[in-house]
Each structure stands twice: as structure tokens, then as C-alpha cells.
């Protein structure tokens, strides 16, 4: 679908140098972040899984793992994990290579060779059954649950019926709709996990002593007409279509089953997106009512407007308009069919707005403090 050379900084100290390499070598991508050191336990493991998953994503041809040298997330360990996917991986360390400029030169040299190799590959037909499609909604409004999310649900069903995988995520925004998904679980174990992850997410609000509504729905959601988290959740759940829920996976974990899969992520757009892409999603369907620029360094993100006002106002950022459902000129099935066509076109090389605008967002869901 895509064939990027990823310059992967395993530590915030190396992120600027990684960015510099992308300025020097075309065909390379990277991301700025604040993670990678003084992390322990499950939080360490989650960040490690995210780095390794980004590198192993099928949209990445090869990886230059760029570390500082002394950090907890050792570049070499991340590289070894990525190498299991069989793709070219090289390690560059700023401390070992004599500082920033030497590391940039070394990384750029390796990356340039990888880009040359990647450019020789030809596109080959791949069945939809090989697809992992992430689904997401951000900047929701009252139309989300009426137009774009049900249309994504229609596409999710089509992908599942073709033997592929569709990821439902943002656990926060399924609080209040969990019973509907638990009822569709493939077995009791999956149903039990649904209630467990919902309870864990809700408990975080309880522990902080706050009304979750102060952060979610956001002020923009509220201006758009959403009044409560439950209302937002019921609209968000429409993205999951109607097929059985096969599995519930941890953040940034690759699904072991095909079909509809739930990934436990927060509702925060970038953290959710990063988790799904690190979990193997090659493409993401992202609905928005308020409008959003969000994109990924390695996966095309198809941004779907829930209403035509926003689609015309945010034309730079949006790829697809589902607002025709609101106007009554198209049905959910018609918009869903059109969106499925757009999905296949993007998989075959059509660029999304966020790719054209180099919107390379990345953020890891941290589940522990930094030490």
C-alpha cells in the first residue's frame, strides 16, 4: 500500500536528528515524540510495543532505528523486535557515532540506500482479506452517529465479509455502549473483557475524582450538540457495523484474529491512531464533525466529514463527505459503497489529504509515570 523508510527515534533526545534525516533523504518519514526514557513496567512494555509495531507495519519498507545510547528503550532491542518481520533494520546511536551530526550523516547514508532498494519494488495485487482497517472518530458532532459513523460501520462489515480485519477502538468513547458490543462478542471471554476494559477506563475518572465530561465530550463536541459521554459513545459504536466481535486486544497489539476486533485505547485522537497503526492497521477511516487535520507518518488516514458545511469549510483536510445522508440525498448504504471504493483507491496509491500535507502525528498512550 505504502513503502516508507522509517527513521524511528526510540528516545525523545534523538527525535530532532531523526527529523533532520527526513529533510535530507526523500522517501523517508519520522515523528517527533517525548517518550523512551525513565519508563518502567507495563508502561515501558506498551511504549516498546508501539515502537516495534510502527517499524513492523506493512507500510514500512525498512527502518533506521535512531537512539541516543543511554536510554531505557534501547534502540538495539527495538530493532531486533522489528527485524522479526523480515524487513531491513539498522541501528544508529548518537553517542556511539560521535554526536548529532555524525549520527545524522550515518543515518542518512543508510536511509538513502534503503530508499533506492524500496524504489525497485513493483505494486502487486493484494486481497482485502489481508487488510487491517482502523476506524476512528474525532471532533464528533451530532451528525457523527447519523451519517459518517454508520457509513464506516457499513464499510467495516464489507471488509469483515471479505475476510479482512476492522479495528474498533477508543474505549473511553464506548462507555455507555458496551452492552451492545458485549452482546455481539464471539464468546463469553471476549464479552467479559469488554466489561473489564470499560470498567478500567471509567475507574480512571473515578480515581481522579472528576466528571469525565469535563474532558469528554470536548467543548467542540458540546457546541456540536452532544450532551453526554453516553450520547457520544452510542454514536461512536456505529463505526463497528454489525458483525460479531472476535477479539479484544491491548494497545498497540497486533490482532491474532480476523473480523471485527476491539483495541483498548483512550479516546484521545493521536494516541488512538498510533495504537491502531502500531497494531498493524495499514489504513484508517477517520470521521469528524468539527474537522481535523490528523494523519499518520506511515498509514493513510481517510478523513470523512459527517456534514457538508464542515466538508466545504475544511476542504484542505477532509477526503470524503458523508453529509449527504443528513441532506437526504444519499442513504447510508450508498455512502458506504462510495467510501469502500475510496478505501480501495487509497490502498492502491491515491494520496489522502493528511499525507499530502505531511501531517505526521504520533503519540503513545502512557499508563505510568516517568521516573
Amino acid at each position, binding site marked *: 500500500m505504502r513503502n516508507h523508510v522509517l527513521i524511528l527515534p526510540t528516545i525523545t533526545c534523538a527525535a530532532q536528528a531523526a527529523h533532520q534525516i527526513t529533510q535530507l533523504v526523500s522517501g523517508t518519514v519520522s515523528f517527533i515524540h517525548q517518550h523512551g526514557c525513565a519508563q518502567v513496567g507495563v508502561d515501558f512494555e506498551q511504549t516498546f510495543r508501539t515502537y516495534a509495531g510502527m517499524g513492523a507495519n506493512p507500510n514500512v519498507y525498512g527502518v533506521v532505528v535512531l537512539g541516543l545510547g543511554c536510554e531505557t528503550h534501547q534502540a538495539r532491542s527495538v530493532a531486533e523486535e522489528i527485524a522479526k518481520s523480515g524487513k531491513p533494520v539498522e541501528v544508529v546511536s548518537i553517542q556511539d557515532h560521535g554526536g548529532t551530526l555524525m549520527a545524522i550523516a550515518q543515518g542518512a547514508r543508510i536511509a538513502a540506500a534503503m530508499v533506492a532498494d524500496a524504489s525497485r519494488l513493483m505494486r502487486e495485487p493484494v486481497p482485502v482479506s489481508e487488510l487491517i482497517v482502523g476506524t476512528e472518530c474525532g471532533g464528533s458532532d451530532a451528525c457523527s452517529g*447519523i451519517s459518517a459513523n454508520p457509513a464506516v460501520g457499513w464499510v467495516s462489515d464489507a471488509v469483515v465479509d471479505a475476510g479482512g480485519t476492522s479495528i474498533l477502538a477508543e474505549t473511553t468513547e464506548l462507555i455507555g455502549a458496551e452492552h451492545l458490543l458485549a452482546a455481539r462478542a464471539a464468546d463469553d471471554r471476549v464479552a467479559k473483557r469488554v466489561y473489564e476494559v470499560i470498567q478500567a477506563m471509567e475507574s480512571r475518572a473515578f480515581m481522579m475524582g472528576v466528571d469525565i465530561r469535563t474532558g469528554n465530550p470536548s467543548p467542540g463536541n458540546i457546541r456540536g450538540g452532544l450532551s453526554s459521554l453516553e450520547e457520544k459513545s*452510542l454514536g461512536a459504536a456505529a463505526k463497528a457495523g454489525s458483525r460479531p466481535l472476535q477479539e479484544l486486544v491491548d494497545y498497540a497489539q497486533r490482532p491474532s484474529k480476523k473480523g471485527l476486533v476491539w483495541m483498548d485505547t483512550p479516546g484521545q485522537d493521536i494516541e488512538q491512531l498510533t495504537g491502531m497503526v502500531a497494531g498493524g492497521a495499514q489504513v484508517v477511516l477517520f470521521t469528524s464533525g468539527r474537522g481535523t487535520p490528523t494523519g499518520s507518518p506511515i498509514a493513510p488516514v481517510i478523513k470523512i466529514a459527517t456534514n457538508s458545511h464542515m466538508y466545504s469549510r475544511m476542504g484542505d483536510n477532509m477526503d470524503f463527505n458523508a453529509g449527504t445522508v443528513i441532506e*437526504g440525498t444519499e442513504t447510508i448504504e450508498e455512502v458506504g459503497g462510495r467510501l469502500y471504493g475510496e478505501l480501495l483507491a487509497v490502498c492502491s496509491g491515491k494520496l489522502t489529504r493528511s499525507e499530502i500535507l505531511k501531517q505526521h502525528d504520533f503519540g503513545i498512550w502512557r499508563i505510568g509515570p516517568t521516573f
Partner: protein
Amino acid sequence: MCTATWTNVQKAHKVVMMKPVDSVAVALTDIPAGTRVRVVCGESVFEVEVLEPIDFGHKFAVRPIAAGESILKYGEVIGRATSDIRPGQHVHIHNLEGVRGRGDQLAKS
């Protein structure tokens, strides 16, 4: 999903009511106060005078809702009423509160 269109002073206003059991409908155009609307969803038929301006995407009550009562949309609970709500009134954060993720209420008790 049930939609309805009707005319008021030569301007069409659209609403959607997701399920017949719902207590609210969603405006799909800005609806001025005083507009009389007929909302039909399955066997549920409501004649409602919109009592205050309802912006695009916002909700109004189609039936009387008592303080403390659950408010339904999509046939599911989206929160509870914090005051009595008359048909045609705007339903939003001023008279609807979520009941999930309420760590603030736990902290008070």
C-alpha cells in the same frame, strides 16, 4: 432512523428521531422558536412546538421528561434530566447530565 421534513414560513426544517422509544429528536437545520413540527418515528407521532431556537445538530424533547428521568436517544440511555423538560425545549448540558464516568459525584459522597 426516521426523518421528517415540514414547512414553516416557506423554509423547510428537518429533524431526525433515531428510535420510536426516544425522548428527543435532533434538528438537521437551525429551527427558530415557535416552529410547529410533526415528528413521526415508527408508531410514535409527536406534534411539537419548538419553544426555543434549536441549532443544527442539537436536540429537543418530543415528550415530557421529569427531573431525574432517563433520557433516551438511539433507543438507549444518554443521561438523565436535571430538571423537568417540556416537549419542544432544548435538551443539552443545562438540563441533561451524563451518569457514566462521574468521579466528581463519587468524590462528593
